[in-house]
């Protein structure tokens, strides 16, 4: 791997989250300086900051894009106990700002009484739904019934997880065989023996979310979790960032009609476990095709994990800060090929 480009983000404080939009042409960064910046990728690959505005009155923890079917929409969540929804609009021809794009706040969600730790949009086939989780252990699912009017959001579900929540992840599967499923992670360090990952499933009959499973083997605080893209499999894959990196396989058991008012029973298997970070793991995330998992840990490294066709997982790359202060963009070429072919002939004059 090599460093292609360095972008001067210019936030006045730590960046807490960076999020690509669906097509990878736009990016949003959020920071402890309470602002969000939106960047657009130009034709030659350079990132240009097209918006920069104060979003909250506390550190902004996460920022995320809605699916482009709903327009250019961002959601952010903050230490200030709120989450907000933003939309980019193009100035009307009558305005002085004709054709200019700018971001406006559509709504503020103030239901939480504690810091909102994560905000995620549900898969698009569920409509325009936004989910938050807070340090008070409540997961809230909001819906915008009229996608043309983003100032109206209604709180559809409140799930009380009883443990301080740090992260949520929706199962991206849109298959009709799989009802909506959300995983919630907790970083509560006081409840030592409780399973820190809970999985909730939507029950059509009761129109409510019910707990399908708690992963009892995960008892250490969980800082992040991520469902892998589904790729037509019958089972689900969930990666967890806790004191190590753990990948679980969740296999829905066959169910008959009489049990349709209870969540699907899931068989849990561990696909892999890595403790190479030697310490707490803070983030996990899958690439688009779920062929690679990346994790970030207390050792200050990002590690990439890959399964070969025999389903054996290995670390394939490490990214680590070199500690050298930088004052301009770099062009470091550090890729190495192991196949040097020194024993093959070099036909170079």
């Amino acid at each position: 791997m090599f460093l292609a480009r360095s972008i001067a983000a210019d936030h006045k404080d730590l960046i807490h989250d960076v999020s690509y939009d669906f097509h990878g042409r736009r990016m949003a960064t959020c920071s402890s300086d309470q602002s969000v910046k939106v960047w657009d990728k130009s034709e030659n690959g350079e990132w240009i900051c097209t918006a920069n505005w104060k979003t909250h009155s506390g550190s902004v923890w996460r920022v995320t894009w809605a699916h482009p079917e709903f327009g250019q929409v961002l959601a952010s969540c903050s230490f200030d106990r709120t989450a907000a929804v933003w939309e980019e609009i193009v100035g009307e021809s009558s305005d002085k700002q004709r054709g200019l794009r700018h971001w406006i706040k559509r709504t503020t969600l103030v239901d939480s009484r504690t810091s909102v730790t994560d905000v995620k949009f549900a898969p698009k086939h569920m409509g325009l739904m936004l989910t938050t989780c807070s340090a008070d252990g409540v997961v809230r699912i909001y819906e915008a019934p009229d996608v043309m009017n983003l100032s109206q959001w209604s709180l559809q579900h409140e799930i009380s997880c009883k443990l301080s929540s740090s992260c949520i992840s929706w199962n991206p599967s849109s298959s009709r065989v799989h009802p909506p499923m959300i995983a919630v992670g907790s970083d509560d360090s006081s409840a030592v023996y409780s399973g820190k990952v809970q999985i909730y499933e939507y029950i059509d009959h009761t129109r409510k979310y019910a707990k399908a499973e708690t992963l009892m083997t995960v008892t250490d605080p969980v800082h992040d979790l991520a469902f892998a893209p589904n790729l037509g499999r019958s089972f689900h894959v969930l990666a967890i960032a806790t004191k190590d990196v753990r990948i679980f396989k969740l296999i829905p058991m066959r169910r008959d009609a009489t049990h349709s008012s209870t969540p699907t029973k899931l068989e849990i298997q561990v696909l892999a476990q890595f403790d190479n970070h030697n310490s707490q793991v803070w983030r996990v995330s899958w690439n688009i095709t779920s062929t690679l998992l990346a994790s970030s840990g207390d050792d200050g490294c990002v590690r990439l994990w890959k399964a070969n066709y025999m389903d054996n997982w290995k670390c394939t790359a490490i990214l680590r800060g070199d500690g050298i202060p930088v004052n301009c963009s770099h062009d470091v070429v550090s890729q190495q090929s192991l196949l040097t072919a020194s024993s093959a002939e070099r036909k170079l004059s």
Partner: protein
Amino acid sequence: MEEVDVEPTTTPIPGVDSNRKHLGFVWGPGDILVYETIYKASGLSTGGCPFVHEVRKDEDICSPILRKLFNESHHIFVGLQGIRDDLPSKNKKTQFVSISKNYRSVIRACMEELQQVAGKVEGKSDGRISPVFFLQVSILLAVELIWNLCEVLFIDAAPAGSLLLHLLDWVRLHKADVDEKARDVLQSESPTEHQAYWDVVISYVLQGRMDEARQVLMKQAALQPAARGMFKLGAQTLTEFDVKWRHWHEEVDRCLQDQSFASNPHLEVICKILVGDEDVLLEHKELLSTWYHFLVTRLLFSHPIVKPTELHYYAQSSMHMFLDTRSVPEPLDSILLAAFEFDIHQVIKDCSIALNNWWFVAHLTDLMDHCKLLQSHNLHFGSNLREFLLLEYASGLFTHHSLWQLAVDYFDHCPEFGRVYLELQIERVPLDTERKALKVLRICEQRQMTEQVRSICKIMAKGALRNNRLGSALSWSIRAKDAAFATLISERFLQDYCANGAFSDLDLIDNLGSAMLLSDRLTFLGKYREFHRLYGEKCFSDAAKLLLSLMTAKIAPRTFWMTLLTDALPLLEQKEVIFSADQTHELMFCLEDLTSGNCLPKPDRAMQDEDIDTTKIEILRLALARNLAKAIVKEGTVEV
């Protein structure tokens, strides 16, 4: 055979102190962004973080020369998939070999181009060739070497006898510097005095190129008789050959014993080589330069009719003899050894690990799968391995702004997961222009990916609406079959009409055709515009009929009825009677319907608006009454 095991490489990120800070990240299309952060900061200011770094994995896709490789091999790949299964296997084998040669020629062409470019760079005064370039060339060299060997051993599956001939060709192809040296020597003033003279002769002998060796030897007139003694390998039956070879071998041996070449140490060396003296061969390591050259030469002069099954024994021993005990075999060596052992799976596995790019293993495995070479090993993994590698390769292509189109074909030929991978990735192709969006759509429509089609059209419609391009938004919503959105946009059109008195995007609305039926509002928009058209063409009675039907068939929304009735006024006030008596009655009924019941005055409406309304209604009533009178008279009159 040990697996090539590899430690993961570490890429340094500048400016981030990993001892004190965390490294945040996010996946992007084809890259990963990293930045300095601290997880679980409590919101206190701990200092700004300057940079977000873009880290990439594959540089190959960015190289314009390698892009040709991808394009051309894609062509070969698609052709290969089209080969019918029911062809007799002999024909298929020749086809597969020719395809293999095609792939290899593509690799060679790419290498040559890279070298040409390097040559140009070197020519300039400040030209510096980046180390990456050398890497690319050496990788391609290795790849072609391995592929060629696989072709000889697996695809062509040469039997004993011709096996050695093929291996000789293989070695000769990859040791091209001999000819250059020979040219230098022959073109010099006094070839026999040239310091490389004997090196050239011996190199030719080592490669079994007796004719060329003879030619060079001819330069020494005194050695002509010796030159004639060279043995020629030809195509005969194995047993014939064996007999002749042994005979010749004994003769050379006798020459050595007789000391007939004692006078000329060089010739003696050559003689010893011809009998396959391994020690002498090893003395010429520099000329051989690789253990596999040593292997082939050794076989040539000791065991020319080596069988494929015996190959691995000679290969292993050759490698051990050639490399000194201290040096560790490189990945390339292990791969070649695995090939000589006919362990195809090992070759593929080791190549996957050692190479940065999936191109090579994906195409080679695919070809070998077509040759039915993978099935004999492990049925379950045979076809899955091919698909796994093709999916990896194609997924890598998808992140490129133009190569993604090649990837589509690869996914098409992965029966198990190809479709779902394609569905997932094609949605992510940025829809920069309408042209690109249409290209993506065509691909989805050809494969009946209805959800992706709908989604892409919706995204385009939404984008167009945002930029106030109503016509574009409408045509995209029609294509998406999105009734709700179409209704919304039709409303906007109608609002615009009320505000401006004219329609925009007339072309589109006039040519809606059956798409009109997508939503009621859209149907109304289409029909309303038709009314205006008929009026403009002075087809008054048709226009009138249409106008009336819009209300009576409830196509028009009630909020629009006032406008429609107002539109009817000019028709009512024409000299000739357009609306019949019955039609007039219906119009009156509509007016009454509108003015009674539903229309409660809104509290916030200005007095002026109400006045305007009342006036309008009065005018309408008057016009309707007058028309009714005229109509009755007209209909009651008998033409004399």
